[in-house]
């Protein structure tokens, strides 16, 4: 039995109000690891909240650290030409797999502010591991890895607007 998003929010709320510093929880295929000090270290390889792409997390106002604000990206980041690997950063090795944004929205590398990113360059990922979040009007959608591999390159800065179909990162199959 998988916990619902609402139940996860409840758990986070209880955790926030408690004196606990760290929490790790595994229910079915959902693994939850949160820390108030950001000191999960090596175990943070596990995505904090593993979401399938169809599931959107709508945090309530009380789970403040899970609601990143919409921030205007610097005006110097025009994103007019995107959509192909070549347009973003020159030719990539042929076996790399592009992860593209399934929606326009604000790209977040971390599950919440002051928490470690879902993935760093070089990180090993399994199929369906969460790679990042895309937010549209406070609706957070997790983007998951299409395959097992290694994160080869991340092209987008945290908290910036990404276009529909924009290449976010490259994975190298292992």
């Amino acid at each position: 039995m998988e916990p619902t998003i609402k139940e996860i929010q409840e758990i986070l709320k209880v955790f926030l109000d408690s004196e606990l510093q760290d929490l790790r929880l595994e229910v079915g295929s959902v693994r939850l690891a949160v820390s108030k000090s950001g000191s999960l270290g090596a175990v943070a390889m596990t995505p904090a909240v593993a979401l399938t792409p169809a599931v959107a997390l709508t945090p309530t106002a009380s789970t403040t650290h899970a609601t990143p604000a919409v921030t205007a990206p610097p005006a110097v980041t025009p994103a007019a030409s995107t959509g192909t690997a070549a347009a973003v950063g020159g030719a990539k090795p042929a076996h790399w797999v592009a992860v593209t944004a399934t929606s326009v929205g604000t790209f977040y590398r971390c599950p919440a502010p002051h928490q470690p990113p879902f993935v760093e360059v070089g990180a090993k990922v399994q199929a369906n591991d969460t790679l990042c979040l895309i937010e549209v009007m406070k609706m957070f959608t997790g983007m998951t890895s299409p395959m097992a591999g290694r994160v080869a390159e991340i092209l987008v800065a945290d908290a910036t607007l990404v276009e529909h179909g924009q290449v976010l990162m490259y994975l190298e199959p292992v």
Partner: protein
Amino acid sequence: MKPLRRILIANRGEIAVRILRACRALGVEAYVVVSEADRDSMAARLADRVICIGPAAAKDSYLDINKVVHVAKATGCDGLHPGYGFLSERAELSASCEQQGIVFVGPQAESIRLMGNKLAARAFAEECGVPVLPGSLRVTSVTHALELAHSVGYPVLLKAAAGGGGRGMKIARDASELETAFQTGSAEAQAAFGDATLYMEHYIANARHIEVQILADHHGVVLHLGERDCSVQRRFQKLIEEAPAASLPLSLRAEICASAVMLAQKAGYRNAGTVEYIVDQEAKRFYFLEMNTRIQVEHPVTEMVTGVDLVQWQIRIAGGTPLTLQQQDLQPQGHAIEVRINAESAAHGFRPSPGLITRWHAPEGDGIRIDTHCQAGDRVSPFYDSMLGKLIVHAADRPAAVRAMCQAVAAFDVQGIQTTLPFLGQLMAMPAFQSGQINTRWAEQVLAQSQLNK
């Protein structure tokens, strides 16, 4: 309130380009959202920044309020222009912009809501003392429709309460036609608007479609910019629009314009809007039809005869600038005509004709204006409406404008796709059009006649 400095254009096609040009003229930055199908559109090429918000299907791109508002916010836009069609008459968009601190270039959500429900708008007009057609508030069943038609008087027109654009609209001349009309009308309304509610009005056979352009600022000033005659229609879609309405007696003209201003004032309306009327040519009486809470396709004819840039004023008003125009300075000068050029084959029942434009040679000259997003080498996509642009002429009087339009249509050469230009040229050349002896059924009668002669 302060003048806008960066506007997100939440639309496509010619109106996106039109808004962009207004932004340029005012020194306002113009960002534009596009679907995957419009990445290389003219608006995208001209914009200061382009943001792809989704796939070609409009429901996942141009019709997604959350995506559009999020992009406006995330790119630091202080205003959002919805154009016409798509989200332009969705009260939720105006409300969402307001919540996010983005200025919606258009009226407040309440005005859109009031006028968006055609029944509520009709009731409001009646309350304001503006005449409405004899009719009903709501038709609940076939039996009810038959009863109502008896008191309203045939022919009757069924309309969708949530509607617009002719969808769900059906004429019935007698009881047997009414049964079919009720069923197909409510099915169409359900499919198009998610609301099957219909209402009934007496149908005026010899009618003109007359509409009044208004502008209203944040300081209580409401002005009218005269009327337009949009009587040349096919299936309730406008084909040709003119300003001023040459057929309208001056006293009726003054009355209609005054009623539009009064309606906007009582509604506390802001920004640009259009009040539509049906004029009974025999009884010389006018009736409120509906109010459109956005810029309209045919706005250029008003701009040509008044010299007022309506889209620039929309942007200025949204930024809080008071209307400095004076009503007495807004007398129409000369006559303007617009034709809508669609990628359709008139010879094949106006079948859409998407494809590659291999040649696009537009006429040029004094008094000729073309609002378009097309050029040679562009591909007309099958995903959206088929309008390629609008050809507008302005001349000293109506006969001169008709002549200029005939020449301009003949000189307009588009290859690669079928367009409605030849059909528009035929209409323009007809004695009935030239002498102004037309009504809202005229174009369809011409078409029916040409079918018979085949």
